[in-house]
């Protein structure tokens, strides 16, 4: 009889201890689950922000690429036009020289006439006036010849001593 009672009490105690332990453990697990849920939620939030930010970066880079392509195209168009203009200007050197020389020839003819008029002028004042006109023509011709020389220079080789440091050697 006493043995049975001990057995029953022992069993009841075991049930109480087990129940208490389970309840305590379950509370701990629930707290951990809640913590993990909070971590996951924060992580999802961070991931959403990361994705949004990455999309922003990708779009910004695409926009920058398009802008760069447009500017590069404009730059190339300007460079191509400049190259054409330069090629035409270089190719036109001989015709410019011919035109300048023709103008110089006209100046020479006008000068010769003015010189003859000056020599035949009756007064010193008239001779002075004609001489001033001759001087002006001389200055004009000097300016023309400088332009002739500049155009003729385009076809001349750069002196070796000057260009040597820039020449590419293989």
């Amino acid at each position, binding site marked *: 009889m006493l043995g049975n009672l001990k057995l029953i009490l022992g069993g009841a105690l075991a049930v109480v201890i087990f129940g208490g332990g389970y309840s305590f453990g379950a509370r701990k697990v629930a707290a951990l689950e809640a913590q993990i849920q*909070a971590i996951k939620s924060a992580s999802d939030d961070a991931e959403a922000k990361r994705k949004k930010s990455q999309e922003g970066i990708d779009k910004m880079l695409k926009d920058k690429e398009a802008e760069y392509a447009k500017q590069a195209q404009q730059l190339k168009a300007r460079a191509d036009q400049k190259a054409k203009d330069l090629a035409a200007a270089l190719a036109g050197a001989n015709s410019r020289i011919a035109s300048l020389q023709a103008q110089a020839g006209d100046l020479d003819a006008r000068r010769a006439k003015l010189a003859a008029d000056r020599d035949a002028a009756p007064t010193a004042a008239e001779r002075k006036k004609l001489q001033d006109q001759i001087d002006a023509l001389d200055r004009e011709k000097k300016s023309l010849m400088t332009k002739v020389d500049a155009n003729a220079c385009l076809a001349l080789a750069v002196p070796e001593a000057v260009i040597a440091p820039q020449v590419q050697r293989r």
Partner: protein
Amino acid sequence: MAVPVVKEAQKCEAPASMLAACGDPAAIGQGITFGEMIDVSGRDRDSLNACALRHKSLADAVAACNDNIEKYNAEIREMKARNAAKQ
């Protein structure tokens, strides 16, 4: 419930067109004329302009990337501070 893992960092992949190297200077040969030198100079100037534009565009893109990443990092810092305040 899967525990979240660390994600890859953000990427700032500059367009290939902006990463191209600058062109070499135009070649200068023996006996080059003054006219040809003007042509060489013009081509080098064009090349330099193109390179400068590419460099500026790339620098702008990198700066914009850094701004975006910094904004993102600021948001993350803010989020961490909020979470720390909750605990």
